[in-house]
Structures are given as C-alpha cells and as structure tokens.
C-alpha cells in the first residue's frame, strides 16, 4: 500500500498493478488517517526522547526541514499534475477507434521505461536538462506516467460496450459519448491511477537532492552519510506522512468524483 514508499529502491512499486480494489476506497478513508496519526505520534516521541548530538541537531534544523518538506510536496504535486495532463489525454487518444495498435506499443514502451532504475532516470534527465526542480518534475512525471495511462486505458475500456453502443444508437456524437458516458464511467479507475502516481511521486521526490532539486532526500542522505539513524528516520517518516496525507485527499476526491448510480 501507500505507506512504505520512502526509500529510492522502492520506486519499483510503480510497476505493480495500480488498480486498487475500488470497494476498499471507503476503508482507506478510515485506515489512512489512523496510520497517519500513529506515525505522527511515533515521530513526536522520537523527536522528544532521542538524544540529539550536534550533527543530528544541525541536520534536523527545523527551518531547513520545513523548506525540504515544502519542496517535497511541491515536487510531488507538480509532477502529478504533469502526469495527469499528459497521461489522460494520451489514454483517451489511444483508446479511440482506429488507434488500437498504438495502445499496446505505448504501454509496453512505458513498461520498459520503468525497468530503468529511478536513480538512472533522474541522472539521465539531469544530463539532458541540467539541474533543478524542473528536471526533477519531468523525471518524476515520466516515471509515474504509466499507472495513470494504464488506468485511463483500462478505465475507458472497461465501460460496458452496450452502454456506448446505446449512446451511439441514440445519436450522441463521439465527443458526446466520451464526455457524457465513457469518461464519467472511467473516473473511479482513473482516480485510482492518479492516487498511485501521487504516492510514487512523493516517494521518488526523495531523489531530487541528487540533482539539486531539494526535498527531504537531503535530510535522509545527510543522515546516511553521517551515520545518524534518527535523522534518517525523521526524514523518512515525514515523506511517509506526506504520502499518507495526499493519498487520503486522493481517496476523498475519488469518492466525491465517483458518479452516482455506480455499484
């Protein structure tokens, strides 16, 4: 689930199927906040009771943490926005009549792209676009494209053919069919993909520090370099809290945007 995407290695979570059990949505809305609160409590306890030596104190300097925290959210949200803007239209395009070949090629191409380690991808983008948050956002978006694209395709294709056929038979134009039938009925599946992409992006933004993009990765890296487990822990938990919070908001949106009348 969404809680563990804190370390770079777990970027491979992106290749897991991102089609959540949609019935679980409501359970998510209860379980996620509980997890969030427990984790926050744990963080508070660690913060208060562990010994902070000089190095740890300087790594965990609150104003710096706060900046990194905001950067992490900024990177995750913008890359998710970019994913949405790219993947949904692309998913719509490849599911239109007359473009069936393109679809499978595209998905397998992106699947291949996912085989590249996130680390490598970011470095690759750095070589191409230089350093900075723009490059990070581009790299994250590329990595998280697949779940949204795939869910858009699946979401549109799982719409009952007879419903589309009936719409066509009544004289809805292809644009009207897309807008009034296919997209609304695909919303729950597409939203599930967006939630997955968001969580991936929060986790992957930890790598932004590699190319000067900031984020909580800096704290974790400093902790690793100096052998300060408390710093590593605080950095990782903050990433997890962001992931949980955004996933919760995604769950709310998913529930709110789901058309009435669906089972």
């Amino acid at each position, binding site marked *: 689930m969404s809680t563990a995407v804190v370390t770079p290695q777990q970027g491979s979570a992106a290749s897991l199927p991102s089609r959540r059990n949609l019935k679980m949505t409501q359970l998510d809305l209860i379980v996620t906040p509980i997890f969030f609160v427990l984790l926050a409590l744990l963080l508070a306890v660690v913060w208060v009771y562990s010994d902070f030596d000089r190095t740890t104190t300087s790594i965990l300097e609150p104003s710096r943490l706060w900046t990194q925290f905001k950067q992490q959210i900024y990177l995750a949200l913008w890359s998710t926005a970019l994913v949405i803007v790219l993947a949904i239209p692309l998913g719509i395009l490849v599911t239109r009549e007359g473009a069936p070949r393109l679809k499978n090629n595209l998905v397998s191409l992106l699947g291949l792209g996912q085989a590249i380690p996130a680390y490598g991808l970011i470095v690759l983008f750095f070589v191409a676009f230089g350093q900075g948050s723009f490059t990070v956002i581009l790299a994250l978006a590329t990595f998280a494209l697949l779940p949204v694209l795939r869910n858009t395709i699946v979401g549109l294709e799982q719409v009952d053919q007879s419903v589309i*056929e*009936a*719409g066509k*038979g*009544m004289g809805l134009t292809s644009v009207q069919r897309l807008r009034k039938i296919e997209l609304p009925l695909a919303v729950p599946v597409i939203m599930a993909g967006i939630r997955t992409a968001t969580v991936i992006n929060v986790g992957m933004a930890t790598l932004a520090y590699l190319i000067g993009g900031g984020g909580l990765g800096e704290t974790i890296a400093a902790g690793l370099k100096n052998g300060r487990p408390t710093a590593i822990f605080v950095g990782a938990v903050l990433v997890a809290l962001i992931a949980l919070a955004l996933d919760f908001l995604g769950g709310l949106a998913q529930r709110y945007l789901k058309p009435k*009348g*669906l*089972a």
Partner: protein
Amino acid sequence: MNPQETAVSEISEPCIKLENVNKTYSGVSAPAVKDLSLEVAQGEIMVLVGPSGCGKSTTLRLINRMIEPTSGRIIYEGEDVTKGDPNELRRRMGYVIQQVGLFPHRTIAENIATVPKLLKWPKAKVNARVDELLEMVSMDPSIYRDRYPKELSGGQAQRVGVARALGADPDVLLMDEPFGAIDPITRDRLQNEFLRLQEELKKTIVFVTHDIDEAVKMGDRIAILRDQSEIAQLDKPEVILTDPADSFVENFLGSGAILKTLTLRRVRDIELSQPVIIKRSTNRSDAILALHDSYFPYAVLLDDHDHPIAWVDERALNRSDSLDRSGASITVQLQPEDTLQDALSGMLQTAAGMSAVVNGRGQYLGTCTIESLASMLIAQPNGASA
C-alpha cells in the same frame, strides 16, 4: 432469386427501403449481407428472423448507420440516408438492444431524456415527456423517475430501454432481440404490452429475433433470413406457417410449426363436442343411463342460467353428496375468440383435458377436448397449402 417479391404489403408506401445493400466487414472475405433488398411499410412490425450469424443485426444496424454499407442504397421516408449526418439520422430512429445499455450513472429520467435533450427540447417538455413515457411502459414515474438503472430488474430495465428509444417520438423503432435476455414469463408479458402499445403508436418497427415463436407473435410480416441475410421467405406469419417456401424455412420453423398454427386459429374454427348435459334437478339414475349411452364418460352440470358448473362422472353421480361438490368444478372457460393456443394451455391447466366453451354471457356452448384439437392438427398437416 426471391419468389416472395410479389408479397408486397398492402398497408402503404414503404417507410424504409433497402436497395441491393451489401456489407462486407473489413478483414472478412465473405459478405455479412449480400445484395439485400427489403421494404418495410409504414406502421408495420417487420420481423427479421433467422439462425445466429445470418446477418440480422448487421442488417438492422445498416438502417441507422451504426454500420456503413459497402454498397447499395437505404431510403428512409423518401430520402437516401447513406449520405448526411449519421447522428442526426439516429436521433430520428429509436434503437433498442438486447443488453439495453442504460447509462448506469444517469437516473431513469435522465436516461429517457437523452434524445429530447440532444434535440434541445425545453425542460418542461422533456419532463412531461419522461413521465408520459414511463406511464406508457407501465412504470410509475413517481417511483422510478429518480432511480438508477442498477435498481431495476431485467424486465424493468428493458421497459426503460423501450421508453428511452421512444424519447423524442421517432417514427421508426429498430429492435435487436429486445426481449432475448429476459425470463420467459416476463418476456411474454413484455411482448403483450409492447403489442398493445404498438396498436396505439403505430410505429414502423424492424424487429430482430432468432426465436420463431417470437417472430410469429410479434410480426405483421416476417422475413426469414438465411446466411448473408438472404431472404428465404417474406410474408405474413400465417402464410409462412402453412406454406413454407422451401426446406430451409420448413426446418427453421421446426417440428413445432403445426403447434404454432394454434396461435393463428380460434376456438370457433373447430367443432365442439357435446357431452350429456345435466341440471341440478336432473334425476340421478336417468343421468347415469344417459351417460352409459354417451361417447363421453362425463356430463356437464349447468346451473339455471346455463353457466357450466362442473364435470360430473358416474362415480360422482353415485355419491350422495351434492352434484356441485362431487364433480370436478369448471374453472377455466374458453370463448370462441380465444386462440387454439389459449385453448390448449387452458386444458393443460385443468387435468381434465377438456374445456367448456361459453358465449359472451357465460352460457355454455359446447366442450373443446384435447382430442378435437389433436384431430384438427392431424387433419391439416403441411399439405394445408391448397
């Protein structure tokens, strides 16, 4: 090619006309529809029936251009519709499919309002139309208007499907096995309701089915199709049943063809049996004697108004009980206008294998027996074409 070309309907000029229409799907060498010419008259139900895969759905979908013909012309109300905007054409034709295809995220009212809204009807008119249509298909608007499709049974969903197709009052309804996925009892009811509705609406209907019984029941005319939508026979149901054009049609009608003629004939067409009649006042020993002389082992007990009460046999007469109670009471009665199909099912409901026939005032006319039905069927086998 087609010996039935002469069987032009006498109703009026054709509403839909297919002229030498061909359809070959891309990637398939054999055409799905080959050189089909067909005329559907204003206000009739034209049934397309044939084995699975013979091209019925393809033919139907050519009419509203869900599929574009490879060649040929399709004329609707005098104009060639193979040109022009297909979406506008479809808004003028109701389309009903077996899977119904209601929009699951829209209420029943919104579903039915689809085409009126596309045509930008004013809101008040749309709402009034929705209620009118729901009532037309026997669904209470106050209950169903705001429900969602998932709350409907299969039969109700198809009622809404028909209502939705009638949304903007199109002249034509295209129906592709509309009742095919519905249980037999509900299907029968929907068919009857639909036929009653059609008596009022007088739409031009092209109705696809693979079920010959449904074809006979629904069709003003039936086109029996074989592979590639070739018309094997096109005629009124009674003609097809009694005079199948060739062995393909005969096979398609199946061994039940004679039974199907039962729906086309009425109780008044057969000779009624006349068992002994007794009244409550009749002397019992006289009745037993009369029964001994009769061909039938039972008598009909009539009341003072000649209404049939019970079947009475010798054992019942010997009992001291009242005649009303010792006989087998007559619960199912037939009238001369009933079809022989009704007669048969009526008789099968009572174990008696016979049914009393009464006139409009309930007075006894005679008895219809299962033997008389059987002998009528045997007396007119396939050769009845003379």
